[in-house]
C-alpha cells in the first residue's frame, strides 16, 4: 500500500518502521527536519511538505503531539488528500478537535478515521500497540493491513471518530485516578507508621495485581520520581483532555477534578517534569508529611 506518515516523534518512528517492515511504500514528513534518518535507511522516502506527503497515497497517518500540531498539519492534509484516500489520526487529541476535523473532512467528501493508540514507544517499535479505531466501515477496512503491522490488537469504538478518543482518554483517566488513589492510601498508612513497601505488597498481591498498580505503586514505595516514564505535565494534559471530553457530553467526573488539582499542585511545587507518580509526594505535602 502507498502510505504517508506525518509526525516522526518516538511513536511515529516506531510505527513507520513497522509499516516498512510489512513491505509498504512509505512517504514521511516531519515539521522539524532531521528526524527521518533511520526510516530513510529502512527505505522510506521523505516529503518536504505535508502536501507532498499526501501525493498518490492511499492512507495518510498523522501522529503528532497535540491539538495545535494536528491543526497545523490537518489543513495541508485536507487540501492534498487524494480522492478515496483516508486520513488516519493516531495521536491523542481532544474529542472536540477530532469532531471538528471529522466534520471538515466530511465536508470535502474525504474519509477520516481516528485511531489513538495505547502503548509506549517500545510497544510502537515492536508492533505491539493497542489501536482504538473509529470511522466509516470502508475506511476502517482499508486501514486494517496497516493497523495489523503497528498493533497487536485493534478495538473498534463506535460510529463517530471522537468515540475512539473517548475510550483512549477514559483509559488514561482511570490510570490517573489509580495513581491519585494510591497516593492517598500511601499517605494514610505512612501516618500510622507503616512501611510503604509493606502496603505495596498487600495491595499488589491480590485485587490490584496489575501493571498500573505494580509500576506506579513501586515508584511511590521507593519515592523514585526522577526518571520519568510519563511526566506530571503530560499527565495534566491527558486529564484535562478527559475532563474536556466529559464536559462536551455533560458528564461530571469528580475524581478527574481531584486528579487535575493534585497535578496542578505538583507543578506548583516544582514537580512538573518528574514522573507523575510524584502525586504521592504532593499528597504527602497536603497532609504535612513533607
Amino acid at each position, binding site marked *: 500500500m502507498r502510505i504517508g506518515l506525518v509526525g516522526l516523534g518516538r511513536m511515529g518512528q516506531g510505527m513507520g518502521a513497522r509499516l516498512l517492515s510489512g513491505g509498504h511504500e512509505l512517504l514521511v514528513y516531519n515539521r522539524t527536519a532531521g528526524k527521518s534518518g533511520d526510516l530513510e535507511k529502512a527505505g522510506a522516502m521523505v516529503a518536504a511538505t505535508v502536501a507532498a506527503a499526501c501525493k498518490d497515497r492511499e492512507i495518510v497517518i498523522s501522529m503528532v503531539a497535540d491539538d495545535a500540531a494536528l491543526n497545523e498539519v490537518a489543513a495541508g492534509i485536507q487540501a492534498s488528500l487524494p480522492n478515496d484516500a483516508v486520513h488516519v489520526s493516531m495521536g491523542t487529541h481532544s474529542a472536540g478537535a477530532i469532531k471538528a476535523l471529522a466534520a471538515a473532512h466530511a465536508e470535502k467528501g474525504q474519509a477520516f478515521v481516528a485511531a489513538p493508540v495505547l502503548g509506549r514507544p517500545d510497544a510502537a517499535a515492536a508492533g505491539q500497540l493497542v489501536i482504538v479505531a473509529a470511522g466509516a466501515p470502508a475506511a476502517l477496512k482499508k486501514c486494517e493491513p496497516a493497523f495489523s503491522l503497528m498493533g497487536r490488537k485493534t478495538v473498534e469504538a463506535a460510529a463517530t471518530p471522537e468515540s475512539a478518543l473517548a475510550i483512549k482518554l477514559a483509559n488514561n483517566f482511570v490510570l490517573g485516578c489509580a495513581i491519585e488513589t494510591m497516593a492517598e492510601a500511601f499517605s494514610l*498508612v505512612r501516618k500510622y507508621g507503616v512501611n510503604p513497601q509493606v502496603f505495596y505488597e498487600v495491595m499488589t498481591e491480590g485485587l490490584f495485581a496489575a501493571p498500573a498498580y505494580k509500576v506506579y505503586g513501586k515508584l511511590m514505595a521507593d519515592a523514585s520520581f526522577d526518571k520519568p516514564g510519563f511526566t506530571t505535565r503530560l499527565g495534566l494534559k491527558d486529564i484535562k483532555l478527559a475532563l474536556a471530553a466529559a464536559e462536551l457530553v455533560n458528564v461530571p467526573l469528580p475524581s478527574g477534578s481531584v486528579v487535575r488539582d493534585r497535578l496542578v499542585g505538583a507543578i506548583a511545587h516544582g514537580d512538573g517534569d518528574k514522573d507523575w507518580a510524584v502525586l504521592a509526594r504532593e499528597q504527602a505535602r497536603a497532609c504535612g508529611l513533607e
Partner: protein
Amino acid sequence: MKIGFIGLGRMGRGMAHRLLGGGHDLVVHDVVRAAGDDFVRAGGRFADTVADLCAGREVVVTMLVEDAAVIDVALRPGGLCDSLPKGAIHVAMGTYGVAAIRTLGAAHAKAGQVLVAAPVLGRPDLAASGQLGIVAGGPEAAVRTCEPLLQLMGRKTFQAGELPESATAIKLANNMVLGCAMVAMAESFSLVRRYDVSPRVFYEVITEGLFSAPAYKGYGKTMVDETYDNVGSPITVGLKDANLIVAAADLARVPMPSLNIYRDRLLGAVAHGDGDRDQAVLAREQARAAGLE
C-alpha cells in the same frame, strides 16, 4: 494451642474450621448457639458465655461484624478483658476502626493482656480454604506466637508493625483503593457511554492491559452486565467501611479527596434506594449524575 474463637458468621466459621483442622484445642462461641453445632460434632467445644470461653485460653480470636460488637465482647462485664488469663492474646480479625482498636489495645494492656489486630483480605470461600491474606499488627512476640494459627487461616501474613492500628490502616487503605477504583470505572463508563461506546468494549480495553487485575475484572464485569442484584459486598457495607476510613484519615490528619468522592457516591446510591445492591451499582449512581438514567 488452646484457642477460643468468637463470631461464627460466614467468614468466622471457615476460619475456625481451619484451626480445628490444624489439631488445636478449640472452644467456640457465638450469640447464635446453633452456629456451633458443627464444631461440636467435629471435636470442638461450645462455650455458652464469653467468660467460660476465655478460661485457660492462650489465644482468643474474634471475627465480629463491627466496632460496637467487638468493643462489647471485650469490655462488658464478664467480657474478654475481665476473663482472659494474664498474658493471653486477643486477635481481632474483623475490619474495625482505628479508634476502636486503640480502645481495645489500651483496655487489654490494663488487664495484662495483649491485642493483635489481624484484619483479613478475602471472602468466605477463601476463609474456608485457608487462603486469606492476613495483615497483622501488634507486639512482635505476640504476632510470632499467633503465627501458626495465622498460617492455618491464610496463605500469607503481612507484618504491619508493632502497633495494632498499623494493620487497621493497611486494611482500610486497601479498601479505599478498591472503592476509588470502582468510582473511576463508574465515571469512565458514563463518559464512553455518552460517546455511544459499548461498555463491554471499554471493559475489554482496560482489563487486557494496565488494569488486568481482579478488582477491575470483577467489578467492571458487574458494571457492564448491570447485575447489581447479585450482591458480593453491598453499598451499605461499603459505606460503613468508607466511614471507618474517613475516621482513620481524620485521626491522622490526612486529607483524602478521592475517598470523599467515593463516600459521597455511596451516600447517593443509598439515597436512590440502591443500598442493598452490590457496590458496583456506583456505576448507576454516576450514570444518574450524568443524566444517563
